[in-house]
């Protein structure tokens, strides 16, 4: 009887190997007239519904490959660069324009001047149409209402270095994600010397460097820290969960708040290029901006004419004083400061 059990077991092994061996590459259908592969660093919970409605409206099957929190904005980027010679993705839906610009500099993307970009402000997009921006998040200061009273709440990112928040403020690691983009924008906006002084002041005020913006939100909401620097979608999640948090658009009357628009990138040589273009057109429509505003991400439409949903927690982009940066060169600046400043700064202070 034992022998029979063993035979059964061996057979199961063979079947397992057989099933795996027979599994066709990239799920049978990643290339074909009716398919589309989208890599995205936008959170899956926000990207998936858009993919589903595109699928329903066009009949094109969308295979979404989202990034994870652990490798946010960087795991898929590495994968796209490694796959450059024979890409599997048709579109990269980036959560920020810096990663899109890196793909351009590595020769992974191709230009696509979409007609659907009509009405979107041009300053947020690539002049050569390698990436086109739409709906945005903003970099904001989140604070715990139990720890910070209304008249004590921060108003500028410089408040992270204010003695009243000494040891009670946190930011995400500036080598990664949108915090790296913010660092790059600060260097561009303030100039190298002032930006370095600002980072030094953070050290003197014992600002804690955490692993991600999600962790900043979580630990401020928990009351471990009084204030932190994060993105509006993180803040919205905390608000919807009923956490005792508030937020502030930093430097509303000075250098402005940094906007982080999404960016649609067409991958050069993708297996379903035409479907990729259709998806980018779909992303850039005012209706998609409206849908992203209604989503849990509560993204801010770049078009001023897109109506905000009732109870929308944030202002529209046109109502904000936005930070004046050249989005096209942020990636270059980031590459420069990552090596020369940010890496040593993190090494010394984390």
């Amino acid at each position: 009887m034992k022998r029979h059990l063993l035979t059964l077991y061996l057979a199961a092994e063979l079947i397992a190997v057989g099933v795996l061996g027979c599994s066709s590459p990239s799920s049978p259908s990643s290339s074909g007239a009716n398919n589309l592969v989208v890599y995205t660093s936008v959170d899956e919970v926000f990207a998936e519904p858009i993919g589903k409605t595109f699928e329903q409206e066009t009949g094109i099957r969308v295979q979404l490959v989202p990034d994870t929190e652990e490798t946010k904005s960087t795991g898929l980027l590495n994968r796209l660069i490694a796959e450059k010679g024979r890409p599997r993705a048709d579109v990269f839906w980036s959560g920020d324009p810096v990663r899109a610009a890196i793909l351009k500099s590595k020769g992974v993307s191709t230009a696509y001047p979409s007609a659907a970009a009509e009405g979107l402000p041009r300053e947020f997009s690539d002049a050569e149409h390698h990436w086109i921006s739409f709906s945005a998040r903003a970099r904001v200061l989140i604070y715990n209402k139990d720890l910070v009273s209304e008249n004590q709440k921060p108003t500028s990112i410089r408040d992270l270095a204010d003695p009243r928040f000494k040891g009670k403020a946190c930011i995400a690691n500036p080598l990664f994600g949108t915090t790296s983009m913010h660092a790059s924008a600060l260097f561009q906006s303030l100039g190298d010397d002032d930006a370095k002084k600002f980072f030094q002041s953070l050290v003197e005020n014992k600002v804690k460097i955490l692993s991600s913006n999600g962790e900043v939100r979580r630990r401020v909401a928990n009351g471990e820290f009084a204030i932190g620097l994060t993105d509006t979608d993180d803040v919205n999640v905390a608000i919807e969960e009923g956490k005792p948090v508030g937020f502030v658009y930093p430097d509303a009357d000075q250098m402005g708040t940094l906007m982080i628009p999404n960016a649609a990138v067409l991958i050069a040589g993708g297996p379903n290029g035409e479907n990729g273009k259709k998806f980018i057109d779909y992303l850039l429509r005012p209706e998609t901006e409206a849908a992203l505003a209604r989503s849990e991400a509560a993204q801010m439409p770049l078009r001023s004419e897109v109506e905000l949903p009732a109870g929308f927690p944030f202002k529209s982009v046109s109502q904000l004083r936005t930070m004046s940066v050249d989005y096209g060169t942020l990636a270059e600046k980031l590459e420069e400061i990552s090596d020369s400043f940010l890496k040593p700064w993190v090494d010394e202070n984390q």
Partner: protein
Amino acid sequence: MTLMAQHGSKPMLRWVLLVIVLGIAASPALPLVVLTLGQEPTRSLWTDAFSKSTGSTLYLGAGVSVFSLVIGLPLGLLAALYRFPARRPLILFQALPLLLPSFLLCIGWSNLAAAKWLWWLPTPDGLAGCVFVLGLQMMPLPFFATWAAGHNLTASQIDSVRLHGGERSVLTFSARACAPVAILAALLGGILSLSDTGAPLIFGYRSAAVEIRTSFSALFDYELAGRQCLLLAGLALLLIAPVLFVGLRLLAAAVLARQTRPAMPYPHRALSWVAPGGLLLVLIVGVVVPTLGLCWPAAENPMIERAATKVTATAGTTLIFTGGAAVIAVLFATLIALATSASARGRLFVLAVLLLLLAMPPALAAIGVSRIATGAPPQLDWLMRSRLTVALILGLRFLPVATVAMMFATCGLSPSWRDAARIHGVSRVRMFVRVTLPYLSFAIVVSLLLVMVLAATDITTTHLLQPPGDQSLPVAIFTVMANSPEGLVASLCLLYLLCVVLLLAAASQLPRLWSRRSA
């Protein structure tokens, strides 16, 4: 003269087989290694930051090994030697910490520490926090290794020691006999923790894995990351080589002289209560407490239906990735173990190579494979860009774990069995199917489960290689946890745990089914 030579087998053939299997195991990491060594470095490798983080990493690896050994060895002994209530489920559920990615455990602890009513709970932080969480997570490795080694102690050995010196002597003798394999398993745990970025990132500890991640993901410098990986792996191997050398020799001595009547669990009055108490305590501290921290948002805002949809959508893929990885790892491990069963030097060589590969961060192999696949013709996509690829790379990554388990099992194969078969004219194939395979079957099942479990928690490899449209459950949890409501993440974690518990419960029935059918 080695046993291999004594029994007239073909050592050359075995070495060729070994080289082929090791070549396959090393192949995923090779592209980046070659790239690394073939290029002029653009950045300095041995910076202050990297040297500091390398030192920190070695402390972390050593800390995790020692901590997991200190808990795993005594508990494994108690579990193997004594009869106590709920013995089988308690032993089986010790595997639970391995099933949860460290990232989740750390967030669980962090959530708990932030709870106001738990102000008295120390916040895990820095090196101590990492060692605590990762040590508890890796504890099952030395625990199960000790438990398995304890099973191999014979009744006559234990009875004579008990008669001579009482329970204390039994424990001392058993600890000595099981220590080599437990140390080896704890070292494996320490090495696995070297490439973990979750705990160091959350607890603010600068390990080399974080440095390598920075090189990969912030500087996009594969060449630097590759050299850092190689250096770290080489250094780890250099430091553990003496332990490995001595450990393997002791292991061989401990298991080769074996009888067929194993010691039965003994109903000792005091220790029969200490054992379940200890096992329960480790389960509570290692799994229940952090899981509570992770999952309590589900009580406030349950999203079980939404989470169940995700679990249903990802269950098949998860099984295919992890089950495939387990089959591949165990197949190769069985080959390696049989090929080296009579040669201590061969075992040492193989383990050294495999541990070197294990010490490398998973991203290195995954990116390497992506690069090979990109350059390969589309006809090879079934191998290079499919579910099989994910299973293969996961299987090769955890090959060392399966190999140690299978080596341990094959050490008990008596050369006299082969002699008897030869004298009676039994073919090698028949001998293998009728004797060797049934003898190894328990170790095979244990290795399969172990690799499945470890493969499920390797997020990096799965995420970087999974074909579009295929997502495993752990990757799905990691994907949604950034900005999803905490209730959804908690509900997903709860369902994941439930699946794991059901799997373990089913596994606990396996030996019973086995023995009933055999009867």
